[in-house]
C-alpha cells in the first residue's frame, strides 16, 4: 500500500437552486456545502461535526453521490483503484464525480453508508438476512447458499446470531437494527464506510456498545470511516481526526485530542464549551452564541461566523472591551435590519405612571445588548450614544447608517485563509492569519 489517502475531497460544493415564477427562473441557491476539502487515510476515522443545517449530511451524500455535487473533486483510491495518476487534462481517473454508471456501481462496492434511523433504513417486509444478502445478489453473487453462509457469518460477527437471518426488522431493538445495518454495510467488503449519525437515535448504554463494535470491526476489516455526528462526545471517542463545519465550510480540522484540548477557531471553542460536563461540581462558564445560524442562501460575507463570533476583530483605531464590541455589532445589525422595537422597550421601562425618559430607554437598550454603561473610548461612546439618540428620536435609517459607517470589522471583509497550527491542525480564522503574518517564522512553533 502506498500512503495515498483512501478518499480525497477537494473544493466540494453542493448548491440547491431556488426557483421562482412561471418560468422556474433560478433566483438564488442554498449553499449547503460550499467548498470543503479533506483527506481520509487508510484505516483512519475522520469525524465531521457541526450543528444541524451546517451541511454535514449533504457533504456525506455528495461524496458518495447519492446527490450530485455541484462542483469539486472526490478522489477514491480504495478497492484496488490506488496508484492512479492524473489524466493529461488535469482530471483524475478515480474522481467519483465523473464516474459512469458502471464505475459508480463498482465504487459503491468499495464505499458504503450507514444512516441515523435504523428503523426506516430496512424494508419491513424483508427478512434482515434477505436485506443483507440482497447486496451480494445485486453485485453478482448468484449462489444462494453461499450468500446465506456469508450473511450468517457476518451476523455473528456483529454480535447477533445466525438464526436471526430469517427474522424481520420489527423483531429487533434499535441497537440490534444498527448492528444489522453494519452487517449490510460490511457485506461487500468495502474500504470506506460513511456513517451519518449512526448512534444518535440510540440510548447512551447502547451507543457505547455500537461504538465499540464499530471500533472492533474497523480493525478487523481494515476500514476507513467518515463519521458524521453532532455529538462531540461521540466524535471524541471514535475519531482520529475531526473536521468542524459551520454553514457549509470546514472551519477547523485536526487530530481529535488536539482540537478538543486546544480549539483554535472560535466556533469550535464555543461548540465545545456548550457541552454540559457530567460533573456536578463544575460550574460552566460556557460561551454563549447569540442568535441562530444564518441562512445558507445568503451567508455572511468574509468569515461566515463573524455575525456570532465572540472574538470578532476590532478594526484599527478601535480598542474597547471585547464583550462591548460584540454588543455594539449586534446592535448595529439589529438596527440595520429594523428589528429594534423602541416603543415596546419604552412601554416596558415605564412601570409606575409617567413615561420613561430617553435616558432610561437608552440604558435598557444597552443592557439588552450587553453593552457597558459607558464605553472607555470617548469617541466610540459619542458615536454610540449619538446613534441611540437618533434611534429614540425615530430616525432609524440615520442611526443605522451612522452605526454601519463607524463600526466595521475586518472579519466581514476578508475571507480567512487556512492557518497551520501544528502538523495537520488547521483552522480558518483571521486572528491566526494576522498573528502568523506578524510573526517572522510561524512554522517553527
Amino acid at each position, binding site marked *: 500500500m502506498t500512503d495515498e489517502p483512501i478518499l480525497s475531497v477537494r473544493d466540494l460544493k453542493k448548491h440547491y437552486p431556488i426557483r421562482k415564477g412561471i418560468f422556474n427562473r433560478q433566483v438564488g441557491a442554498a449553499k449547503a456545502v460550499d467548498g470543503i476539502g479533506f483527506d481520509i487515510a487508510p484505516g483512519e476515522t475522520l469525524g465531521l461535526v457541526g*450543528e*444541524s443545517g451546517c451541511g454535514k449530511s449533504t457533504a456525506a451524500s455528495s461524496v458518495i453521490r447519492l446527490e450530485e455535487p455541484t462542483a469539486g473533486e472526490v478522489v477514491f483510491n480504495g478497492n484496488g483503484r490506488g496508484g492512479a495518476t492524473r489524466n493529461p487534462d488535469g482530471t483524475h481517473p478515480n474522481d467519483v464525480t465523473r464516474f459512469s454508471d458502471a464505475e459508480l456501481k463498482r465504487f459503491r462496492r468499495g464505499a458504503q453508508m450507514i444512516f441515523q434511523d435504523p428503523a426506516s433504513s430496512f424494508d419491513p417486509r424483508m427478512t434482515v438476512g434477505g436485506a443483507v444478502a440482497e447486496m451480494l445478489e445485486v453485485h453478482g453473487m448468484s449462489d444462494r447458499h453461499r450468500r446465506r453462509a456469508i450473511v450468517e457469518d457476518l451476523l455473528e460477527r456483529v454480535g447477533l446470531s445466525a438464526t436471526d437471518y430469517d427474522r424481520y426488522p420489527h423483531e429487533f*431493538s434499535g*441497537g440490534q437494527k444498527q448492528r444489522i445495518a453494519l452487517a449490510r454495510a460490511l457485506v461487500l467488503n468495502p474500504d470506506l464506510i460513511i456513517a451519518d449519525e449512526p448512534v444518535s437515535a440510540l*440510548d*447512551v*448504554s*447502547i*451507543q*457505547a*456498545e*455500537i*461504538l*465499540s463494535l464499530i*471500533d472492533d470491526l474497523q480493525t478487523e476489516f481494515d476500514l476507513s470511516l467518515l463519521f458524521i455526528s*453532532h455529538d*462531540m*462526545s461521540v466524535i*471524541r*471517542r471514535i475519531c482520529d481526526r475531526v473536521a468542524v463545519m459551520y454553514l457549509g465550510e470546514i472551519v477547523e480540522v485536526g487530530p481529535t485530542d488536539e482540537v478538543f484540548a486546544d480549539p483554535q477557531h472560535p466556533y469550535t471553542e*464555543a*461548540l465545545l464549551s*456548550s*457541552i*454540559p*460536563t*457530567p*460533573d*456536578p*461540581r*463544575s460550574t*460552566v462558564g*460556557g460561551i*454563549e*452564541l447569540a442568535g*441562530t445560524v444564518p441562512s445558507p442562501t445568503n451567508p455572511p460575507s468574509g468569515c461566515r461566523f463573524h455575525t456570532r463570533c465572540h472574538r470578532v476583530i476590532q478594526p484599527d483605531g478601535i480598542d474597547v472591551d471585547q464583550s462591548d464590541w460584540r454588543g455594539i455589532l449586534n446592535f448595529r445589525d*439589529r438596527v440595520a435590519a429594523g*428589528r*429594534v*422595537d423602541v416603543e*415596546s422597550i419604552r412601554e*416596558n421601562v415605564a412601570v409606575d405612571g409617567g413615561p420613561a425618559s430617553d435616558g432610561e430607554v437608552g440604558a435598557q437598550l444597552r443592557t439588552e445588548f450587553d453593552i457597558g454603561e459607558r464605553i472607555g473610548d470617548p469617541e466610540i461612546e459619542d458615536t454610540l450614544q449619538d446613534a441611540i439618540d437618533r434611534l429614540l428620536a425615530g430616525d432609524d435609517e440615520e442611526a443605522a447608517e451612522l452605526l454601519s459607517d463607524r463600526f466595521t470589522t475586518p472579519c466581514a471583509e476578508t475571507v480567512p485563509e487556512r492557518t497551520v497550527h501544528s502538523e495537520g491542525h488547521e483552522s480558518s480564522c483571521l486572528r491566526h492569519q494576522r498573528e502568523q503574518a506578524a510573526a517572522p517564522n510561524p512554522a517553527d512553533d
Partner: protein
Amino acid sequence: MSTPLLEVEDLTTTFSTDNGDLTAVDGVGFTVDEGETVCIVGESGSGKTVATESITRIVKEPPGRVEGTVRFKGSDLMSMSDEELRRIRGNGIAHIFQNPQEAMNHCYTVGWQIAEALQIHEDVPDEEARARAVDLLDRVGIANASARFDDYPHEFSGGQKQRVMIAMALVGDPDLLIADEPTTALDVTVQAQILKLLDELQDEFDMGVLFVTHDLGVVAQIADRIVVMYAGKVMERGGVLDIFEHPAHPYTQQLLNCVPEIGGNEGGIPGTLPNPRDPPDGCRFAPRCSYAEQACRTGEQPEELEVSPGQRVSCIHYRDGRDPSLLRENAPGVESGSNEVSSADD
C-alpha cells in the same frame, strides 16, 4: 419540615394491550420541593415519561390505568375530579415536551396560541391577553416579541419554538414545571441557551422543576436531586453529588460508566431492557447485573434502603449484615476520575 411541593408514592401505571397488561411504571416514589430541580434519568423504555405524564394524569385512560398517590401542595390529585384537575394543569403544574413542533398547532399564530392558553385559565379581554402574551414571549428571549406575535410556528427555529413552548407553560404562573426531554432535539449551543433560560425563569417564577432526560451531562449541570429509573422501577434516588460521586446501585454505576468523561466502560451495559409484559422476579436489573446472586432473582424489587442522608437505593447488597463494599470496585466517582476537579473546587 414543610410538605414537599410534589409527593409521589407507589405510582403505578398499567396499559391494557391485546397481548396482556403492560406495567410501564411500577410503584415509583419521589418528591420535588419548592424551587428545586429534580431530574429523572433512565434509558428509553424505563418509564420516565409515563411517570411524569401520570402525575397530572394526561396519560390516556383507558388504555392506561394510573394508581397510587400523588399529592401536589398537600392535596391529592388522584381523587380530584376532571374539573379540579384541569385547574391544576397549567395553573399549578405545566408541561413542556421534547418535540415543540408536535405540541403546537400549525394553523394558528404562536401569539394566538399563547393568548388562548391564557384566556382558558383567566377571564381577560383580548387586548390584555395579547399584551401579556407579548410580554411572555419577550421574557423567554424572543427578540422583537410584538412583531413575532403574529408569526406562525413554521417561521420559528427549533430553539425558538421551544422558547415559545416555555412561554406557553408560564401562562398560568405554575409552581411546578415538568420538562420532558426539552433539549434533546436541539443542538448543543441551543441547548445551552434553553437550559440557561430555564434556570433564570425558575428563579424568577420560583418554580420547582421535574426534568426528564437521558443526558447525564445535562443532569450534572442542572439537578439538585436525581431519580434513577430502570424498567419502570426506581433504582436509586438522592442528591446530585451523592449520585455522581458515590453511586450505590450497580445500574447507576454502570450508567455513569457509559459516559466517556467519567467511566472507562467502552462496551456499554450488556443485555437489553426486560420485557415489560413479563418483568423478571426480584430486582429488575438482576439479569444484566454483574453482582447479582440468587437472592436478587426472587421475590419483589428490593425495598429502598437509605445509604446516606437522602440517598436511597433498591439493592439487597445494602441490607443489614451485608458488605456492600465489593460493589464499589468498578464504581465511577471521586476515587477513579474527577479527583482533580473536586479538589480544585473545594
